[in-house]
């Protein structure tokens, strides 16, 4: 058990991570809206506690798979935020050299096996990653993030059964922000929800207040310990709320403004901040903001990738030739 000062340090660390994610995404959304960052950004603002509470229990050797709304997962796992911001701007030096953008952020150096533009697609990948870890006798686990919308896709079922069957070291994290794109989750999902479905396939599940980072941390700690202890896959259903629209430009007119306002009042960052020293919090938040503002400026100043890169990293045999 961590002592009091360890515990405080852990909380400060989690606050910092949440603040950094929020600051990153505020800048990312602004960059998308202004047109500086091309394409589309799916912000996880308001949901930071899930990524941070889970990843606080992971080691560097552990892997994660993520979603189209994956900035938070990446940052919480220790991905290079500057490279991420460059990636969002499509610049050389971005996490994927500008080829992926927001929906395909990856940082293999810290075990972040990639965001994914296909809902639910990370689930089978996470299962296979865990199988490889076992085959290689590595001491590591996999955390697999997905949204509430993903539980209606076939691979969800297949992956739960698969992980339970082979007793794989996977922590499934269903980040339930209430919406699947423009549709309220409850209007397209029948039955008892994610945890019940997981349990039906043999994956033990817990439900947690995903807006309370300490709660997420505590439950994740428990589940991760079980996984490391060889008990097989575990499932975490984290309830939260998507403050912003589906993308940085969606006004979310399909839901009452009060509902989103109420969620903002439950702010996971403020909830943790209230338990910490106010000055330290202010400093952390200011630092997070200035870090991300600097990354955004760096991104705007960074060179574009060389056009020839369009044709690199496709494949070795039968690679396309560069013809200008």
């Amino acid at each position, binding site marked *: 058990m961590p002592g009091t000062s360890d515990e405080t340090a852990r909380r400060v660390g989690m606050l910092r991570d949440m603040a950094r994610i929020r600051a990153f995404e505020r800048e990312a959304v602004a960059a998308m809206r202004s047109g500086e960052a091309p394409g589309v950004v799916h912000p996880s603002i308001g949901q930071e506690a899930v990524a941070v509470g889970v990843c606080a229990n992971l080691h560097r050797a552990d892997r994660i798979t993520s979603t189209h709304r994956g900035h938070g997962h990446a940052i919480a796992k220790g991905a290079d935020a500057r490279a991420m911001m460059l990636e969002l701007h499509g610049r050389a030096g971005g996490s994927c050299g500008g080829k992926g953008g927001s929906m395909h952020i990856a940082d293999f150096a810290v075990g972040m096996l990639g965001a994914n533009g296909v809902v639910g697609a990370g689930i089978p990948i996470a299962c296979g990653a865990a199988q490889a870890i076992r085959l290689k006798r590595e001491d590591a686990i996999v955390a697999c993030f997905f949204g509430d919308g993903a539980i209606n896709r076939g691979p969800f079922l297949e992956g739960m059964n698969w992980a339970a069957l082979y007793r794989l070291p996977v922590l499934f994290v269903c980040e339930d922000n209430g919406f699947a*794109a423009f549709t309220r989750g409850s209007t397209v999902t029948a039955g008892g929800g994610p945890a019940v479905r997981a349990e039906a396939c043999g994956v033990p599940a817990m439900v947690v207040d995903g807006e309370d980072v300490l709660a997420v941390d505590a439950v994740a700690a428990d589940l991760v310990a079980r996984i490391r202890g060889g008990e097989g896959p575990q499932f975490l259903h984290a309830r939260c709320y998507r403050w912003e629209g589906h993308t940085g430009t969606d006004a979310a007119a399909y839901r009452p403004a009060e509902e989103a306002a109420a969620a903002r009042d439950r702010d996971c960052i403020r909830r943790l901040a209230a338990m910490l020293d106010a000055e330290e919090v202010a400093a952390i938040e200011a630092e997070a903001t200035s870090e991300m503002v600097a990354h955004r400026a760096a991104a705007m100043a960074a060179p574009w990738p060389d056009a020839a890169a369009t044709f690199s990293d*496709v494949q070795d045999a039968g690679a396309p030739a560069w013809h200008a």
Partner: protein
Amino acid sequence: MARLTFAEAARRALAEEMRRDPLVWALGEDLQQGGIFGQYKGLAEEFGPERIVSTPISESTIMGAGLGAALCGTRPVIEMRIADFALCAMDELVSQIAKVRYMFGGQGRASLVVRMPQGIWRNSAAQHSQCLEAWLTHIPGLVVAAPGTPADAAGMLKAAIRSDDPVVLLEPKNLWTTEGEVEDGTEPLPFGVARPAARGDGATVVTWSACVPVVEQAARDSGVACDVFDLRSLWPWDEAAVIGSARRTGRLLVVHEAVTVSGFGAEVVARVVEALGPGALHAVERLGAPRAPVPFSPVLEAAMRMTPERVAAAIRRIAG
């Protein structure tokens, strides 16, 4: 006659078909919110939630349920959101929908439409930009439509809904906001009849979908008077018009957004060469994407995009 966007033309056509035939209905994600390109806007209000069905993210079942509903006599419009997500429903499309009439010896038919907005749009990167039209033309049982103008968007959608065959309707994402003249009360278009978009003896240029405006522009810019055909449907496709023109010009250029290798341009070239004999032709070229995924960054994506400049250069090259 009205000036409408591609999306609005398609929206209006669907509304008209739904008014005409109470067995026409649509299913897909977010449809009650108007669809992601506004092509279903207001339809839930007019037709109710039983005919404009917002579904879970369950592509296999969106596709497969559409088939079941067709086998029981309704005419579903299956919305895939974007063509890439149809990859999650390929068994249902290819091994079920396309084959059901044949396998069952004609007892049942899959009279339905699968809408697949396709192609490069707004830096959406590798998983949201594919053109898999050639795949579909390879599958017996499927009709493949690929309109490139607002008027054809409406005419092809109507034809698709009334067709007793399953029709995959590829809508070019990049053209949803393009405007064009659309007849009031558009009539369904026949499949397999190309739209001649320009006339000239210098070359035969064939294209479809998002490349239509690009090629039209390029033909004007190239300084070469050429026959330009917008195929409008890829299966069946207007072999007669293209072969007839190529016999006259002896020069064939096929332009598409999809990857060149094993793209539908290969089929057009092979068919024309087989039909006329290679000796009847002087120059043949395909212009498509390099065999690489679509990248995110604008400077990289640009290397994959078809442009009037690239097409005009190719026209001049083959007219040589």
